[in-house]
């Protein structure tokens, strides 16, 4: 096949490809990343480039307007070269060179202030998380004073060590020690005067002597719990002895560069070196988070002996650099659901070189360890009352059940709840607007930590839509009712048009921490309507398939990092949550991380997580015709059928 030279401008980077290679693939090969969210299927229409010179074949996709076509715009993923060709990548289509532009681009993409690592603001929960599991950390340190060998007791050094451990921990049945540790023993034991600290790791029902140190180090034992979200990664540093959280940090998942949702990332993993790039993106972030956590309290990497990760199935695969391809192919089989405990270094995570990595078990292709963690943290698997767990993340998962059974489904909610895809959206960090009320003809905002506003987080966008709807500023389809006006009659806010889209100004530039107006526009509202519609429909279909009514639900647990507090009334007003008495709802915050922490501190909890994963049934919504129909009915505020929301009907009429 003929080879042509494709040159990307303005970088002026070239590559030779055959005539069947599309421009998107060619650009990836040169290391230039063009924005796309469909993974090169010609669907999202974001990979627009301009052909400056040369012949090409392009497929008409309906994503290029007449004006753009005249200017030479084509979709990179649908265009192949027919001669040597020069392609200009316009600003709006570029993701930039990963090494140089990452932060700047992310700042733009995520439309908020980007800082690589942020302190996590804890969610206020009115209900303590499960603390009922016995303390027995994934890795435990034990200080031992070994009896010196005598002529009567001259068993081997290694056997002597194991014998002493067994004396202290009679429950340990199977124990093992690696050759490298055995080799160290003769010198280590004698130099340390037979006083050593052993780190015992729980590895797949076996206890392993992970590490032997001289002297008493038993007080310095730390572990890290990580929530690997599609959009956000959160890490907790935990003292494995005192069970206290010593620090917490969060960062955006840099895999966003390769696709916004799990599907586009799975597709990206199939590209040349795609899997590698995705894997490194997540590992690097986890390592950065760990690094900044330990530096803060002056620990070293060696002090951290265990790490546990909870993430959805795709994130878990990518963490371990396992090919996720089959997750999106019929019949949707992941490579692994129950992941053995491995050495963290095998996955590229930097803690103590012999430290262990455990992952929460997954249930299926689209319900993963983060949800198992959520069920564990909520305790819904222990009560006889019918409970609902809703995880408001990029994948909105919903679990229904009680102590007898559990049923889960996954909906594609998008990154809205984490501040993604919104014009002024940011993660729930200090300065994020998390509550909004319209009172006395003025908009009042409340930020996390009462700091000057930087942007809006998930709970804030829920509030503002509810308030705009209640005050009839938007109609039930989420469009602004009135005309553009600088100061609507007797009101203090501004409704204006920006690039042809109507928006309301929540905070003016002079009052914001970012020197820009903080606004909500019709596209933001539309995005959130799609997100909330997906979640609500998931709940509806799950109830229907399980044969229950909304009124049968006794507890609703809400998980997600969308703020420190979620206004339940607002959530019902916009149709995100079912219209149930407000006292049935409990906001738990990020349960993926709290569940992971519980498992880090208790092997019993980890066993429970396995049991939950084993018993949970998965409902595939893509094969449930009911979903599509109900979904389009849910794309309205609060819902096309207002009778489903009697309390909102009262407010609106």
């Amino acid at each position, binding site marked *: 096949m003929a080879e042509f030279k494709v040159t990307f401008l303005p970088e002026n980077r070239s590559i030779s490809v055959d005539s069947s290679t599309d421009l998107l693939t060619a650009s990836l090969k040169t290391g230039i990343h063009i924005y796309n969210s469909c993974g090169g299927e010609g669907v999202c229409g974001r990979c627009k480039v301009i052909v400056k010179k040369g012949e090409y074949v392009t497929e008409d996709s309906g994503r290029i307007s007449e004006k753009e076509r005249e200017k030479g715009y084509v979709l990179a993923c649908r265009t192949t070269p027919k001669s040597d060709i020069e392609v200009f990548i316009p600003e709006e289509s570029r993701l930039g060179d990963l090494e140089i532009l990452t932060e700047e681009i992310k700042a733009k993409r995520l439309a908020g202030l980007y800082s690589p690592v942020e302190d996590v603001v804890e969610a206020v929960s009115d209900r303590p998380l499960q603390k009922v599991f016995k303390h027995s950390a994934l890795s435990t340190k034990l200080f031992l004073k070994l009896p010196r060998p005598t002529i009567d007791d001259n068993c081997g050094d290694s056997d002597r060590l194991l014998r002493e451990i067994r004396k202290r921990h009679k429950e340990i049945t199977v124990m093992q020690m690696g050759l490298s540790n055995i080799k160290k023993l003769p010198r280590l034991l004698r130099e340390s005067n037979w006083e050593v600290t052993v780190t015992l790791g729980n590895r797949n029902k076996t206890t392993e002597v992970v590490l032997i140190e001289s002297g008493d180090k038993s007080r310095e034992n730390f572990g890290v719990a990580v929530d690997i979200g599609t959009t956000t990664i959160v890490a907790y540093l935990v003292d494995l002895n005192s069970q206290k959280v010593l620090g917490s940090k969060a960062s955006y998942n840099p895999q966003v560069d390769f696709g916004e949702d799990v599907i586009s990332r799975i597709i990206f993993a199939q590209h040349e070196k795609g899997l590698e790039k995705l894997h490194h993106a997540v590992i690097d972030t986890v390592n950065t988070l760990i690094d900044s956590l330990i530096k803060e309290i002056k620990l070293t990497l060696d002090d951290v002996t265990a790490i546990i990760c909870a993430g959805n199935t795709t994130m878990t695969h990518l963490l371990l650099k396992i090919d996720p391809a089959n997750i999106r192919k019929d019949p949707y089989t992941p490579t692994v659901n129950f992941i053995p405990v491995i050495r963290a270094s095998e996955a590229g995570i930097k803690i103590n070189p012999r430290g262990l990595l455990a992952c929460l078990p997954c249930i299926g292709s689209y319900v993963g360890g983060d949800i198992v963690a959520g069920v564990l943290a909520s305790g819904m698997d222990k009560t006889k009352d019918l409970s609902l767990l809703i995880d408001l993340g990029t994948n909105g998962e919903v679990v229904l059940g009680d102590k007898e059974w559990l049923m889960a489904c996954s909906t594609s909610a998008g990154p809205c709840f984490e501040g993604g895809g919104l014009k002024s959206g940011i993660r729930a960090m200090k300065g994020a607007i998390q509550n909004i009320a319209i009172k006395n003809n003025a908009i009042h905002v409340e930020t996390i930590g009462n700091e000057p506003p930087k942007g809006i987080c998930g709970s804030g966008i829920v509030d503002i839509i509810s308030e705009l709807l209640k005050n009839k500023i938007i109609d*039930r*389809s989420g469009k602004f009712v009135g005309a553009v006006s600088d100061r609507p009659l007797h009101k203090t806010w501004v409704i204006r048009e920006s690039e042809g889209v109507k928006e309301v100004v929540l905070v003016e530039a002079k009052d914001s921490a970012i020197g820009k107006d903080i606004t909500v526009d019709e596209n933001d509202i539309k995005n959130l309507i799609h997100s909330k519609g997906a979640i609500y429909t998931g709940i509806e279909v799950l109830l229907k398939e399980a044969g229950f009514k909304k009124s049968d639900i006794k507890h609703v647990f809400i998980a997600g990092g969308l703020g420190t507090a979620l206004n339940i009334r607002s959530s019902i007003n916009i149709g995100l949550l079912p219209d149930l008495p407000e006292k049935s709802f409990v906001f738990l915050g990020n349960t993926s991380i709290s569940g992971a922490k519980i498992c880090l501190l208790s092997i019993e909890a980890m066993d429970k997580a396995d049991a939950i994963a084993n018993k949970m049934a998965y409902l595939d919504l893509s094969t449930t015709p009911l979903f599509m*129909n109900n979904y*389009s*009915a849910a*794309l309205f505020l609060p819902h*096309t*059928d207002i009778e489903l929301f009697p309390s909102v009907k009262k407010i609106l009429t």
Partner: protein
Amino acid sequence: MERLIEKWQDKISEVTIGAKKPVKIGGETGIFFIDGEDKCPNPPKVAMEVWDMEPEAWPETLKANFGKALKTPGEWAKMCAEKFGADIICLRLASIHPDSKNTSSQDAGKVLEEILGAVSIPLIVIGSGSPEKDNDVLLHCANISKGQNCLFGIATQNNYKTLTAACVSNGHSIISEAPIDINIAKQLNILICDMQFPADKIVIHHATGALGYGLEYTYSIMERTRLAGISGDKMLSMPMISFVGQEAWRTKEAKTGAKDTGIMWEITSATAYLNSGADILVLNHPKAVSETKKTINNFTLRQ
């Protein structure tokens, strides 16, 4: 064996269109043409299309029926009403489209007045499919035909406010259209009613598919809408309209088939839509009109 007769709790709203010789549609408390169940006070009506310009894309077999009248909308309308027995005239303002003749609101208004002067049967007025132009022109037309109680169209999810406001202030009825999606249909009706538009002046259009071109899909959506309407869903209990003629004559078969293929296509599609609950069928060919009217009579006489 005794037949179970379904009892429905609600009824479809009754919409009256026209002023001089008004017709009523809707009011059903059951499904059309089901023995014993079809408590339908107003049988379906047949409308015929009249354009404000000669429809160039129409096949010769279709054009031939109207001859020179195609050039004079008033005469064309009169012919439809008097010679071919149309219950309603459907004026399509095709020439206003910027890609067509881009004629002005005033020109369109004159055509409308010409037809109002020529016939006394009710009028449906629809635009050209160019949202902005249609808004301008239909607003003018709605104003000058105040009191004539016409049925104006077509309001869609993305473009309903201007037309709704124009209809509500001039007392006209409105066609609300959704792309074969029962939920969007309902959402649009809610939005229109939220503008203080009376629900009993709305007629639903679910897009129309000709036989072999999406007919079954539209059919089942229309059937679902009707069942929801007579089951008590106020925002779906409106009469429905189907633009059968325009779809049937656009098919490959109608354009290239043997002489009567288009007519048969139109009749077959129309008959199907009658059964799905359509209250107004907008047709093109006189033969299709007479056959469809015969079918309606046969069905309703059987009661």
